[in-house]
């Protein structure tokens, strides 16, 4: 049996960062460019070990701005590419996330959220970057963000992030948090042939007929890569379907920007993933994500024990926001409880979707996420 395997099939006890790194490898990632930052450093360290074993590339760039630029370059050279960071690095990456969106470069950006703003609390968890995930770069655009609640999901959702970024030619963000990244849990990695892998659409026309940014019906253009003879141009400037800059045309601006938004919005039914726990007859539903959802699960079970019909809508996809799911829940329940480790971010989206249904927001900052008791009390008060 060869010593170096790409997919580490089997059951493992590992931490979230390592699970994420192995998920990337299993998804086919062979390029990682990054910069050390607590609490995501272990992803870089693990990949600096694994990538050369697999003939892949680990390069430590001089900062997060360069890391983001490098993964777009690698993506355009045909590799699946990823970077990993936390809040301060995520802020630095925003301009180039915009470049990835504008040039429709598939790539994965992991943000292991920590206490912010600014340098904040590097070793403490947070959920303070969730709005930034959608709105962080300037301009209007659509983006995909997933959020894991367990170490297993750090593996699974990294694979999913790669698949989504390839399918929709958009950066896919994995919004982890310091606890999920640093805790150790059991991870089951399936055999390689059981892992679903999606690759970017390639053009099926010869170079002279290739129009690089002409979308198919799903609003996603097939992607040629450097060195394949297509001689195409891509730019961060507003461009027409041929990729050439069109900086004066309102018509081109409108067409391009709306397509970049619609590309995600229109396909949201295929993208959005949630977990529904005991929702069918629920009177009070907790909408939670990330590490907080673990406490929420405990809380609703306690509530059920006490006779309160509580349920949990766990968001796995943050963006595009699972609006339809929240609307459905809101129509059914007396109240929605939203616990977040921030001062009120995703709760605004929930409020918007929930309309008349009361939404109770539980804010927590610092070392610990909400305890199950805290969430249970809120459920009890709302029921």
């Amino acid at each position, binding site marked *: *049996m*060869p*010593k*170096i395997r790409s997919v580490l099939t089997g059951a493992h006890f590992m931490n979230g960062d390592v699970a994420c790194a192995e998920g990337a490898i299993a998804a086919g990632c062979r*390029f990682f*460019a990054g910069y050390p930052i607590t609490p995501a450093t272990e992803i870089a360290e693990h990949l600096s070990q694994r990538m*050369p*074993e697999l*003939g892949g*590339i680990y*390069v430590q*760039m*001089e*900062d997060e*701005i*360069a*890391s983001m*630029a*490098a*993964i*777009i*370059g*690698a*993506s*355009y*050279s*045909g*590799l699946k*590419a990823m970077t990993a960071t936390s809040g301060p690095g995520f802020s630095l990456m925003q*301009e*180039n996330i*915009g*470049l990835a969106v504008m*040039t429709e470069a598939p790539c994965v950006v992991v943000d292991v959220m920590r206490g912010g703003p600014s340098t904040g609390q590097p070793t403490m968890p947070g959920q303070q970057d969730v709005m930034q995930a959608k709105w962080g770069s300037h301009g209007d655009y659509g983006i995909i963000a997933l959020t894991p609640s367990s170490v297993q999901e750090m593996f699974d959702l990294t694979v999913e992030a790669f698949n989504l970024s390839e399918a929709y030619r958009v950066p896919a963000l994995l919004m982890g948090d310091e606890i999920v990244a640093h805790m150790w849990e059991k991870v089951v990695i399936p055999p390689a042939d059981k892992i679903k892998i999606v690759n970017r659409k390639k053009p099926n026309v010869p170079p002279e007929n290739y129009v690089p940014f002409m979308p198919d019906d799903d609003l996603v253009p097939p992607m040629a890569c*450097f*060195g*394949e*003879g*297509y*001689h*195409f*141009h*891509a*730019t*961060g*400037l507003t461009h027409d379907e*041929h990729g*050439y*800059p069109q900086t004066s045309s309102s018509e081109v601006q409108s067409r391009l920007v709306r397509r970049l938004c619609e590309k995600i919005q229109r396909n949201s039914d295929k993208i959005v993933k949630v977990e529904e726990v005991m929702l069918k007859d629920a009177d009070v539903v907790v909408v939670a994500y990330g590490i907080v959802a673990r406490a929420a699960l405990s809380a609703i079970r306690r509530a059920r024990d006490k006779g309160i019909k509580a349920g949990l809508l766990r968001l796995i996809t943050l963006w595009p926001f699972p609006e339809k799911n929240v609307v459905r829940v809101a129509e059914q329940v007396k109240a929605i409880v939203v616990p977040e480790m921030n001062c009120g971010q995703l709760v605004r989206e929930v409020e918007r979707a929930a309309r008349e249904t009361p939404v109770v927001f539980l804010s927590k900052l610092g070392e610990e996420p909400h305890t199950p008791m805290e969430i249970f009390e809120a459920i009890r008060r709302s029921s």
Partner: protein
Amino acid sequence: MVQEMAHPFSKYLRAEVMPHIWCSGCGNGVVLNCFVHALDELQMDLDKLVVVSGIGCIGRTAGYTNTDSFHTTHGRALAFATGVKLANPELEVVVISGDGDLFAIGGNHFIHAARRNVGIKVLCANNLNYGMTGGQQGPTTPLESITTTSPYGSIEHPFNLVHLAAASGATYVARWTALHVRRLTQSIKKMLQKEGFCFVEVLSPCPEIFGRYNKMRSGLEMMAWFKRASVVESFSDPSKAEITAEKIAVGEFVDMEKLSYEKMLHEKISKINEKAMEEVG
């Protein structure tokens, strides 16, 4: 005199987006001309060439060359190019950008790309100001120059790009002006055939803005300065390679052999895999 023949280099340029946006006498046109001239003399495989540019007038170059090309965000061309080259070392990656893009906002990426010695070829059109945005001072603006953000004369010492590139570890460093078209073309050819990080600076006329503010109202006057002041001092001390009204030191300053990043990476990967195979037995 016949008029029906197409320009011999037209195959290197995208007809749909020509003519370029550059002003009359702009050195960027000369840089582009020398670049495609070098490609032609080398009969370069255009399928394996990737042109990456940053933001600025020179940044439009990537849109004009009939190759795979990418126009990045301001200053990030070298970081992007690093990703391209390492992901596919078979590609010839050329960064064509300007003094502001490469050395102000992009300064950090420049010194690290040179330090790493990734096999990227950099062609820098140095027009001594930020042309695209209207002529502001930049990191190479000569002392006391008038620009739109130094109306009383610049009080910042400019970079000596040749010195900076040499100190950062480039394997090939040259400086020419837009007048030295032959030697510039030869330097471009040389760097396209060389291993490691290469840097060619071209002192380039910006007659409409920099020239006009600094008593050189036309491209011809700027070229006259280049002609009058240029001295070829190849392999002299890069730290002394100055650009002043009286003297422009040009030439090839560094030409050495150094194992490139991608070659070292390849060797490491081979070693690791050999070792693993040995252990398996």
